[in-house]
């Protein structure tokens, strides 16, 4: 024992004690002094949130017909972990594509589409990657039976948007899609409710404008995950709340009829050709040139409250196609931007996605004479019994060199003595040319009276209807024309507003532009004695329905909305104009008289106005916009109908027959009844259902070969 050196052992002991002290000190530092900070680090490390998508609200018509719904769809997903390696991924994608894609030539493209989804940041990284939606039952069964052959593959159910009636009301309903890349921030930067980059959102129509109601409130599950992103356990779950339903003012059956009538008339116009004058034939224009009639729109409105009952725009598109996820190429054809049009893939004049009822801007032509007539009497420029002699043309008294000095009636017609009533009925341009001239000459007294009246009727501003991208149109004034030119000299080469512009404006030509909805709304204002409503296409928003109700509780009613102050409408203004408009359909020389041949005008008078607006630099007859705006019954108005058809000729010949058919059906005065709605089968890209202008039995479009306006 004497051998053991106690001192040295003691030294060793001290060293050991101090080593333990160091460890204890460090432990104290880490676990007691700095613990809270590290706890935050660890929380960030391990919490992952997965969003639960709420069921989207439905869109219904005024009678409860469901126009946009949801259904369970079979979706194929791939576990991201098994496809981390590019080689594994490519192999699996190619094999899955071969099952899903029936066309062997397209399998490689499909596999590439999967790959681009894999790299698309909009798909949540923690979730399995959805590679194919709307898989058929056969494909789903095939894959389910062979899960061992497809490692990581899952076939699951998911809610997808459905549009049972294809292209019915497609422009109104709009459609859904992934958050558009270009305005991603609009969604992802929003605080509550949150959006994930992979979310489905409304991108057009009601789907877009009522996104906040339709979407609902997403739920979320918070998971604890490990270092390899594998889920350890669920820490919390908040269930999603379904979206609210949106009930439209649209009557789906009437909507369908409006679409059918418009399509049928456009097709008919394409078989017709304008009659050409001897001079035009001498210029080399052929009679064989038929109307192009590429597009048009119909608006049916309740003049008493501004509700829109139908709003058709042609050409239309199939919502089922868009909801099933369309290719970039197909989307380009539907949108028809300049590059695609230049490549000859689509016709920009017939771009389907444009809702012409609110986005189309048209010279209103003679339908604008309502405005000029009201301005004349209301300002006191002339009394209603003011008469001029219409000798077929109007000549500016003082004419500057190089400017237009003479305007003529359509076809050079002479109407003799006309007052405002007859000027409307026969559509005397000369009467209004004169007014346009006088108003401009005497603007010191009356101001820009035609423009003022147009604006008080709602022209030149968005109507406020619940649809996106609405055009305000344009009411030309000297100041605006100059501002427009200063702003963009290449598009608007002149900022000068000669008196001739006002002459043109008086008959709705020149720079004046209006949407079909604005026209309907202006005539409705006249019909309802001066109330300028902001038209509604949405009636109300309701809570999600419960198990035993068709419709949930009403969350909010939109109600009648005022766009502008009520317009004073004394009898002195209203009566003569009403007589003139009724005469259009009823009087022997009324422009739409032949169109309304056989319509019970004695019991159900129709007050309307035809319009034939010249377009384009050449102002060819075959390029004329055909317009007709009317309300009926004239003295107790229930419906206003505005029809605009591009490059279709005379208003009385193309647009008016469509309006007549709508009145027959709406007022029940003929044999035309709207057909029942038939839900369409699943969309098949190989065989798109053409909902051509097949009119229901008993519905016949009248023909009118008259040639005046």
């Amino acid at each position, binding site marked *: *024992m004497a*051998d*053991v*050196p*106690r001192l*040295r*052992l003691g*030294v*060793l*002991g001290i060293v*050991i004690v101090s*080593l*333990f002290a*160091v*460890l*204890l000190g*460090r*432990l*104290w530092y*880490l*676990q*007691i002094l*700095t*613990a809270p*900070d*590290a*706890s935050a*680090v*660890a929380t960030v*490390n*391990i919490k992952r949130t997965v969003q639960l998508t709420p069921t989207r609200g439905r869109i219904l018509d005024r009678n409860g017909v469901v126009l946009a719904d949801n259904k369970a769809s079979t979706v194929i997903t791939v576990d991201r972990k098994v496809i981390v390696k590019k080689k594994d991924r490519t192999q699996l994608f190619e094999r899955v594509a071969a099952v899903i894609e029936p066309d062997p030539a397209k399998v490689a493209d499909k596999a590439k589409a999967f790959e681009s989804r894999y790299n698309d940041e909009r798909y949540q990284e923690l979730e399995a990657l959805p590679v194919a939606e709307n898989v058929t039952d056969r494909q789903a069964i095939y894959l389910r039976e062979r899960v061992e052959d497809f490692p990581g593959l899952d076939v699951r159910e998911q809610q997808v948007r459905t549009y049972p009636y294809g292209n019915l009301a497609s422009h109104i309903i709009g459609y859904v899609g992934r958050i558009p890349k270009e305005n991603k921030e609009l969604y992802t930067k929003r605080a509550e409710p949150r959006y994930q980059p992979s979310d489905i959102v409304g991108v057009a129509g009601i789907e877009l404008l009522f996104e906040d109601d339709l979407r609902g409130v997403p739920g979320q599950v918070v998971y*604890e*995950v*490990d*270092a*390899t992103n*594998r889920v*350890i356990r669920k820490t919390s779950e908040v269930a999603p709340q379904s979206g609210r339903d949106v009930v439209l003012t649209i009557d789906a059956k009437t909507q369908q009829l409006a679409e059918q009538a418009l399509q049928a008339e456009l097709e008919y116009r394409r078989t017709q050709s304008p009659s050409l004058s001897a001079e035009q034939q001498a210029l080399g224009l052929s009679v064989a040139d038929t109307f192009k009639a590429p597009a048009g729109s119909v608006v049916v409105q309740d003049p008493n409250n501004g509700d829109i009952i139908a709003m058709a725009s042609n050409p239309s598109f199939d919502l089922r196609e868009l909801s099933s996820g369309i290719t970039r190429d197909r989307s380009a054809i539907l949108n028809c931007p300049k590059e695609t049009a230049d490549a000859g893939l689509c016709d920009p004049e017939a771009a389907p996605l444009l809702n012409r009822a609110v986005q189309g801007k048209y010279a209103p032509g003679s339908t604008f004479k309502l405005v000029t007539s009201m301005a004349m009497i209301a300002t006191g420029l002339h009394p209603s019994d003011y008469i001029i002699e219409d000798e077929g043309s109007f000549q500016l008294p003082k004419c500057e060199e190089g400017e237009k000095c003479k305007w003529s009636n359509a076809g050079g017609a002479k109407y003799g003595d006309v007052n405002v009533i007859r000027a409307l009925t026969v559509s005397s341009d000369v009467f209004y040319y004169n007014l346009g001239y006088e108003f401009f000459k005497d603007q010191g007294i009356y101001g820009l009276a035609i423009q003022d009246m147009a604006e008080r009727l709602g022209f030149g501003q968005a109507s406020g209807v619940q649809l996106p991208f609405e055009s305000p149109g344009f009411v030309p004034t000297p100041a605006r024309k100059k501002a427009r030119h200063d702003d963009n000299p290449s598009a608007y080469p002149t900022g000068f507003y000669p008196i001739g512009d006002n002459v043109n404006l008086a008959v709705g030509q020149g720079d004046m532009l209006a949407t079909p909805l604005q026209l309907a709304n202006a005539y409705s204002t006249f019909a309802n004695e001066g109330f300028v409503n902001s038209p509604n296409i949405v009636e109300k928003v309701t809570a999600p329905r419960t198990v035993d109700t068709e419709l949930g509780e009403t969350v909010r009613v939109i109600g009648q909305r005022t766009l502008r102050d009520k317009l004073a409408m004394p009898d002195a203004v209203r009566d003569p104009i009403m007589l003139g408009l009724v005469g259009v359909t009823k009087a022997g020389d009324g422009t739409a008289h032949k169109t309304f041949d056989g319509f019970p005008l004695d019991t159900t008078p129709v007050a309307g106005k035809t319009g034939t607006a010249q377009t384009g630099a050449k102002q060819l007859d075959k390029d004329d916009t055909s317009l007709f705006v009317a309300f009926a019954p004239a003295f107790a108005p229930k419906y206003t109908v505005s029809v605009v058809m591009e490059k279709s000729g005379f208003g009385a010949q193309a647009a008016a027959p469509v309006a007549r058919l709508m009145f027959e059906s709406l007022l029940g005065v003929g044999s035309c009844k709207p057909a029942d709605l038939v839900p369409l089968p699943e969309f098949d890209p190989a065989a798109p259902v053409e909902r051509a202008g097949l009119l229901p039995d008993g519905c016949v479009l009248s023909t009118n070969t008259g040639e005046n306006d």
Partner: protein
Amino acid sequence: MAMNLPKAVDSLHRKHGDPRFHIDWVLVASAIAVAVFGLVNIYAARRQWLMDKNLSEFTYVKRQLIALGIGVVGAAVVAVVDYRKWREYALLLFVGTTGLLALVPVFGKEVGGARAWFEFGALQLQPSEFAKVTMVLAVAAYASLGRGTLHQRELIFAMLIAAVPSALILLQPDLGTAMVFGAMIMAILLIAGARMRHIAVVTVLGIIAVVAILGTNQLKDYQINRLTAFANPSTDLTAATADTPAERNLLAVQNNLKQSQTAISVGGLHGKGFTNGTQTNGKFVPEQHTDFIFSAVGEQFGFVGSAALLALYGLISFRIWRTAQLSRDLFGALVCVGVLAWMVFQVFENIGMAMGIMPVTGIPLPLMSYGGSATMAFCGALGLVCNVHMRQYT
């Protein structure tokens, strides 16, 4: 049966020095406590990983339990045979294990860049662990010849003995184990009576050697990263900027250290509770059942549990140190001191590494870390200490 009184007294007398009555139960109990705590933490650290792979959660616990069983039996065998008898076989055992070490580069299996293992089917053996035991025996046997004084020539010879296995281990390369050898030999030489100035010279030479090894590119990049990462815990490296394999490796080591310290930190005072460690369950700490087992302790059992573990190690250290003092001869004391240095160095290095104050080396935490060879060898070493304690009177 009637008692024969004189015979009973005689028996009592003999039993006074009987080794069977001088087992250090405190040492045994605290060692068992650490081992059980080790099993608990091996289970928690590997549970999720095993469940993910659809394997039994107890796979590693079972294997460790087998190693411990063999270790306990081995320790008993070691303790039963008088340690002075072992001294006679010290040279033979030492030559044997050194021979095995020499064979490792030829027949060994490469794991993680180092060739340190023999593989016999499912069984893997790490000869360097057993070499620790035999080296202690051999050096203690030689150094105790001087009976308390160690002259320069004997000092050099003793160091040469240790240098053979150390060099073989360095070649594997296993720098960490070589450092354990260094600590052990230094402690033994100190107690064996080496002069303080010799100790000082050897220490300086050791430091120069380490610097030289680091400076002459003898080590691979990953080894340098592991050794130096604790000193620069955060460089500007990110997953995106780490281009070379060395940079990626450095990043991995830094990340490993960060995750380990985070796990220990979040344990706080009381810990998150058994199997409730999110860092542990989340497999954020690599090698958590072996080298980084302390991070599992820290997260689940907090400061209280970690300090208790340190206390147990402290208690074991004290018992070994005390046995060295009680030893009947210098050889026994030197054996104890070698084992003491072995354990303390590994505890300090391993826990220090997990807490970010020591370099990263692959040194197990004695009786805690998963690993058969280390566990069995250390059990054997404790058996030697017990042996010395048991025979303090005979």
